[in-house]
């Protein structure tokens, strides 16, 4: 039952919303002169239309309109006034007409011509000529014959009602306002609760003097004053956004107290959004060392919106451990799929150290969100130390790792000067001791290779790594040189 009631209400609403309003102008009555009015029949016609569910502009309002526009003649209108009826009265149609005859003697008779004019183009779209007299209404048995003008008028109204073009009036644009706008602006379209909203509308029509309408902005059942600009047709206003999230349509409310008329013109809508977006960052290409992400060449920063919503802008910034900004980038709209940082700052190559990455985003309403991450940059080479130990005739090299970044791989190879391999060892962890046996240290050549988990690589000559291997040879050479010099000096001496 409730469903049918709702459907009936909807149907009635649509029926009323789709009907176009009609302004019934006072009927001219041709009698002794051309400018008599028949207000009684005019009001009857308006009442008939109202009974037929047609919105009708009140006759008194039409009279006020005629007075304001100095319309002194009846039965017809100039195109200009027809157009004004649309803008001032909101009438889609005007009905003008003439009582062509109305007399009691020698027999009651009544004649009426009506013209229905569309105000959008000032075109006559329907006409009606009605006439009736008691002689024409005679019946065979004489029962129910009208004998007075009032009786004839009822017949004429019934005829009018029957011929009225309902179809024409129902095909007018549903709910359309007759007030035309040259410009409408609502800014911003998305904002946070309590922020200031600005709206502006310029009407095409210009009303002057006492006919200036009272204009205000209407939102969510509340009205806000509109200020008229110097051009006489632009209205501006501002008001704080609602506290509750949601979409709010803005209407321009135009009222003409003299005509008891008000028009509501939709200007647009705005959305109040008080919920901030939720953003996070994921780092790829890093190693977790002592609970902290560290990289050496490049790191991929992948931003993620945990609650999807459109963004207006974003900013990615890098800070040194001291808090100094070393570089940033920003953009509008959605976030890129990923950022790649190669360890560069705005002044060049960034030093090894700890950095803070901060990602800020703002949604369309301006709600901010932030995500940050600490990140270590380490480009230093693995640090391998070696010591040479001798046990009787055998030698042993002890290798150890002194860096903070764990090693991924290491290798040591030693040869004689002739290229004979003495030892080759490799592994993943240090320290380790490598026995050399009774190798001749003077002939020893080779290298130590190490690569840490970040990919930093070290290849170092074993003679640089073990200065002890070089010192005896150097001492011998010096001794030899001194000996040669001494001998030469002795010879010369």
């Amino acid at each position: 039952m409730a469903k049918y009631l709702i459907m009936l209400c909807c149907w009635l609403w649509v029926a009323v919303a789709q009907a176009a309003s009609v302004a019934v102008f006072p009927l001219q009555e041709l009698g002794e002169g051309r400018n008599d009015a028949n207000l009684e029949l005019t009001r009857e016609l308006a009442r008939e239309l109202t009974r037929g569910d047609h919105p009708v502009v009140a006759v008194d309002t039409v009279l006020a309109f005629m007075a304001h526009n100095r319309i002194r003649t009846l039965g017809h209108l100039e195109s200009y006034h027809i157009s004004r009826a649309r803008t001032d009265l909101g009438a889609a149609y005007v009905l003008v007409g003439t009582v062509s005859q109305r007399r009691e003697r020698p027999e009651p008779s009544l004649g009426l011509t009506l013209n229905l004019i569309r105000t959008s183009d000032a075109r006559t779209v329907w006409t009606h000529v009605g006439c009736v007299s008691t002689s024409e209404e005679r019946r065979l048995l004489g029962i129910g014959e009208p004998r007075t003008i009032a009786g004839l008028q009822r017949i004429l109204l019934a005829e009018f009602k029957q011929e009225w073009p309902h179809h024409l009036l129902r095909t007018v644009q549903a709910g359309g306002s007759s007030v035309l706008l040259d410009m409408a602006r609502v800014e911003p379209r998305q904002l946070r609760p309590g922020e200031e909203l600005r709206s502006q509308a310029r009407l095409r029509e210009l009303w002057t003097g006492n006919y200036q309408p009272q204009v205000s902005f209407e939102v969510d059942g509340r009205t806000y004053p509109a200020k008229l600009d110097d051009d006489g047709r632009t209205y501006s206003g501002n008001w704080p956004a609602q506290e509750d999230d949601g979409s709010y349509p803005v209407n321009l409310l135009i009222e003409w107290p003299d005509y008891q008329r008000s028009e509501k013109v939709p200007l647009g809508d705005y959305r109040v959004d008080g919920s901030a977006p939720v953003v996070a960052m994921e780092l790829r290409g890093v190693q977790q060392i002592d609970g902290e992400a560290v990289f050496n060449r490049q790191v991929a920063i992948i931003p993620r919106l945990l609650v999807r919503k459109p963004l207006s802008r974003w900013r990615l910034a890098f800070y040194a451990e001291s808090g100094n900004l070393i570089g940033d980038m920003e953009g509008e709209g959605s976030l890129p799929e990923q950022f790649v940082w190669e360890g560069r700052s705005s002044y060049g190559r960034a030093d090894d150290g700890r950095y803070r990455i901060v990602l800020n985003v703002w949604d369309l309403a301006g709600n901010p969100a932030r995500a940050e991450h600490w990140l270590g940059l380490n480009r230093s080479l693995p640090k391998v130390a070696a010591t040479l130990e001798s046990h009787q005739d055998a030698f042993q090299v002890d290798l150890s790792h002194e860096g903070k970044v764990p090693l991924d791989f290491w290798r040591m190879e030693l040869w004689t000067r002739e290229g004979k391999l003495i030892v080759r060892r490799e592994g993943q962890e240090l320290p380790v001791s490598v026995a050399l046996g009774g190798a001749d240290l003077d002939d020893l050549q080779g290298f130590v290779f190490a690569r840490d988990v970040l990919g930093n690589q070290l290849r170092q000559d074993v003679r640089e790594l073990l200065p002890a291997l070089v010192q005896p040879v150097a001492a011998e050479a010096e001794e030899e040189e001194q000996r040669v010099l001494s001998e030469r000096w002795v010879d010369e001496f």
Partner: protein
Amino acid sequence: MNSDTLGMPRSSVLYLLIMLVVLVLAGCAGRNQLPLQRQMAPLPPQPICSIAVLPFANDSDYLMADAIASKVFASRLQDAGHYLLTQAGDIQRAYRQLAIMPGSSPDLNQLQIIGGRLNTRLLITGSVLEMREDRGDHGSINPFMVLELAIRDGSSGEVLWTTFHRRQGSEYKKTMHFGSIHTVTGLSRQMADEIITLWFRKGLVPCNL
């Protein structure tokens, strides 16, 4: 019935019957001849949509005969042809601008100006030559009207077609008192319909806009 009882020969009765039929037919033929139309020049090329029905002149003694006839005629023309009829208010303004007094008819020069200002293809002028309300049967009114219309070129004002029509309400009587027209408005409507029907038959085309 025997013709001898009427005291006249059979041939005389036959003659009277023939005369009666001829008279009836002649009467019908006479009625069907109206309205009379005369074409001075062809209408402008089709389509014709913008038409202005100018205020008629009143050469009768009936007060407001011109207003009744012109308003009814404009309404019926609009209804039949869906033309873009110039609003009567705009026509009145043009008359005021040219200082043409109510009841006066514009001359050819003024018609040209009016046609130009109203931007119409055709102008329709008219004159109510006679309008009166005679007494009919049983105290009823028997209206009588004589109307002359002209279709004029909208730019030159020259007459293209003229139409003459004359009717009285009792001419439409069918059975007993039924069918008769007892109001000048009703007679104006009937005559307007007959004139418009004739115009359509002669080549005026309704507007389809």
